């Protein structure tokens, strides 16, 4: 049996590049539909992060829900919203400048600076991974069962609300 092993540093850099470049392209791509595809690629990179952090169940859920459901829903919405409504509304108002860019850059830089400075104090030695998928099920049904029920009610009410909102009056 041949196993392909990639050093963790290399895989981390590749995943970070895929995730971040996908996110940038999702916002900056000329066509909205290319942006949705770039968003799907960014979500797949995030699923890779989850897999590398020993959370295979979450990686599977990320691909199934984000790439399989949300991006497809977005694609259908882009097709339903007519083309002339969705194009030519990029660009900023005159006088608005690049305040948002400065705001976002300063926010990200300050948080990344704190994370980098706190690096020596954070736990760096990875403990042995002894969490498995079979640990998630009992926790979901015993300790965290009430939030699960509330979430189920919330999802059904939100889906009903979305249906009522999008209904065409005849």
């Amino acid at each position: 049996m041949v196993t392909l092993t990639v050093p963790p540093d290399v895989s981390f850099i590749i995943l970070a590049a895929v995730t971040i470049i996908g996110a940038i392209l999702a916002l900056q791509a000329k066509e909205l539909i290319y942006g949705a595809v770039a968003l799907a690629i960014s979500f797949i990179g995030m699923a890779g992060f989850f897999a590398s952090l020993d959370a295979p169940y979450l990686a599977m859920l990320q691909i199934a829900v984000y790439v399989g459901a949300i991006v497809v829903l977005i694609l259908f919405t882009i097709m339903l919203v007519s083309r002339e409504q969705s194009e030519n509304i990029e660009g900023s108002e005159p006088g608005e400048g690049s305040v948002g860019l400065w705001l976002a850059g300063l926010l990200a830089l300050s948080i990344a600076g704190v994370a980098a400075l706190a690096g020596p104090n954070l736990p760096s030695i990875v403990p042995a991974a002894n969490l498995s998928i079979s640990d998630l099920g009992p926790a979901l049904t015993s300790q965290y069962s009430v939030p699960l029920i509330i979430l189920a009610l919330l999802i059904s009410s939100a889906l009903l609300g979305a249906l009522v909102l999008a209904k065409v009056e005849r």
Partner: protein
Amino acid sequence: MVTLSSYLIVSAALLGIGVYGLSMKRSAIRILFAIEIIVNAANLNFVAFTRYMNPPQVSGQIMVFYSIAAAAMEAAVGLALILVASRINSTIDVRKLNKLKG
């Protein structure tokens, strides 16, 4: 060596990209993209912290499980709102959707 700070820095970069999209973009669908990117950044933080915790805890992964479900719900409602807005106002430019302005 991949440390916890590396994951936090990637997450901060994603947060910055998302905030940029939220504040600068005018298309409602792009703003939804930005929201999803920010939610992803938060999920990455949860999973990274719970992985580096000693002994490993299951609570962070459960939190992300709920967060993914809530994000799917939010996308469904948001896209329904965008559809209704495009039908009523025939635009999805958020700078022009200002009928509630006093």
